[in-house]
């Protein structure tokens, strides 16, 4: 009996044309990563600082002799800054292949031949990476705040620092947005996940190194603008109400980040297509 005689039945069930493909894509991407033990290990390890900070909060709020460990707004600012290293590694691990792998296996024409738009596809990919980055920035920072409330037995700290929750949220949002948009745009440029990883690491490290060299040689701290990470730091410092060691005005830093995000959107618009037109 030919194998195709095993039958084909028409489908009479539900068909949804509502715009939810971005969620299907994001969910599949997240589940695929979570199936990898190495990635799970990295994700768990990225919570190690949270544990240390939780211990600090416990000691600072419950033991009088350790009151010097009591949290301030700066505690949460520092925590988010320290998480940048994990943001970097998770961005590379979970982000480099997001579009590069699809380009390598010609999956874009499969995706875009379905009833989804390019924007839904891109949104699904952005959300995949953003979910992991939120899980190592905003989520642990907010949990630390919750632990502070639980350990101290009151909401005095939170009510005494009304801008803390918006600051954590805004700083995390900026950190995650910059990493996600840059990485997904870079991922659309190549078919090689490894090349994209190197490109991203190059931008991060080369930018920081160039900033350092130019600052030392010229004595001008405004060179922070050549490093996306240091430009972001200018903004997050301002969000937490700290004076930045850089001479760059916050508005200029925001414009620089806006330009970077604009370039990322432009790249994604150009590169995510089912049909590549050469020449």
């Amino acid at each position, binding site marked *: 009996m*030919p*194998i*195709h005689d*095993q*039958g*084909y*039945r*028409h*489908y*009479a*069930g*539900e*068909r*949804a*044309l*509502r715009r939810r*493909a971005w969620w*299907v*894509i994001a969910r*599949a991407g997240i589940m*695929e990563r979570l199936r990898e033990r190495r990635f799970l290990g990295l994700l768990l390890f990225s919570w190690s600082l949270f544990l240390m900070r939780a211990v600090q909060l416990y000691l600072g709020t419950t033991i009088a002799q350790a009151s010097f460990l009591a949290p301030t707004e700066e505690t949460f600012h520092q925590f988010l800054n320290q998480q940048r290293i994990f943001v970097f590694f998770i961005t590379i691990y979970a982000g480099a*292949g997001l579009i590069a*792998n*699809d380009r*390598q*296996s*010609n*999956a874009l*024409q*499969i*995706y*875009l*031949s*379905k*009833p*989804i*738009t390019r924007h839904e596809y891109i949104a699904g990919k952005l959300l995949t990476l953003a979910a992991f980055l939120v899980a190592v920035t905003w989520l642990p920072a907010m949990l630390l705040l919750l632990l502070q409330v639980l350990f101290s037995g009151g909401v005095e700290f939170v009510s005494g620092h009304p801008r803390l929750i918006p600051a954590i949220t805004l700083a995390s949002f900026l950190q995650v947005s910059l990493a996600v948009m840059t990485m997904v745009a870079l991922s659309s440029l190549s078919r090689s996940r490894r090349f994209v990883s190197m490109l991203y690491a190059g931008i991060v490290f080369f930018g920081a190194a160039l900033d350092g060299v130019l600052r030392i040689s010229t004595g001008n701290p405004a060179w922070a603008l050549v490093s996306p990470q240091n430009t972001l730091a200018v903004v997050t410092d301002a969000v937490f109400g700290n004076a930045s060691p850089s001479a760059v005005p916050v508005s200029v830093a925001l414009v620089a980040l806006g330009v970077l995000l604009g370039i990322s959107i432009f790249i994604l618009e150009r590169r995510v*297509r*089912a*049909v590549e*037109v050469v*020449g």
Partner: protein
Amino acid sequence: MNTDRSDRSDRSDRSDRWDRSPVVLENVSVNYGKHHALRDVTVEIPAGAVGLLGPNGAGKSTLIKALLGLLPPASGRMHVLGYDVNKAPRAVRARVGYMPENDAHIPGMNAVSFVAYCGELAGLPRADAMQRAHEVLFHVGLGEARYRNVETYSAGMKQRIKLAQALVHDPDLLFLDEPTNGMDPKGRDEMLALVRDIATTKAITLILSSHLLPDVEFACDHVVVLHKGAVATQGPIKTLKGTSGRVFELRVKGDEARFAEALRAEGLESHGEIGEVMRVFMPEHQPPQLLFQLAARHGAQVRHLRPSVPSLEDVFARALGEEM
């Protein structure tokens, strides 16, 4: 939400036309920069199995991608299953299955996850997509290998899984771009049988793009021949073969080039290389003796003459010949 195959309010008044001609193109041109990939194409593709023929670069894949709404036309209108492709590309793609020409899969997935994922992307609920994925994988002959990672599949299996992902949401129209590429003869026969079966017993209209004439002749009833981005000829294969008049296979000795020139001067079409068997098309009213007379007059001897059956190859050759 769309739950019924016939629930298409915007096409209700013209549904007869769309049922007869699921794909309609009116003066469609598609350009890649300065290159004209499709030139003023006007064609109504009927329901059933339709072959899209043409040499490399004729515009077959471009036509399919334009019909999927992936390539915007520079001019003209396209309707697929009653939907204007420019205005409702999502609605078109929800009802259409596409099997791309080159190797394409979503990395890191086994076959059943991949096909179910494609079903979900096409709008099926998760549980239904998974159930359909199992069914379709059995249908295309990958039931036993459905838990294997797609990246470990052979070329033939990859062709089958591309067909499975195109079928999972039960499309009304299927675009197959070179479906037998890279398959061994047995796999090719099975794939063509599958394709033929889909069109004939499952009532799914399919457009099979291929440069392999035997594949199209086996699987399709109707053909559209593209050449240099324009429609060279179209119609039912039987009709196109029937209107070719008579075909003779001919081998001559002597000045073959002069003889071929004489045939052309007499208004007879011939195809074939010098030194090979020529295929000569003769209108019904002209007797085959004319070939002997022409050969004698132009220094050639007819060594072999045999009436032949018009094939799709003849249709193709004539169509391209007329255009060139």
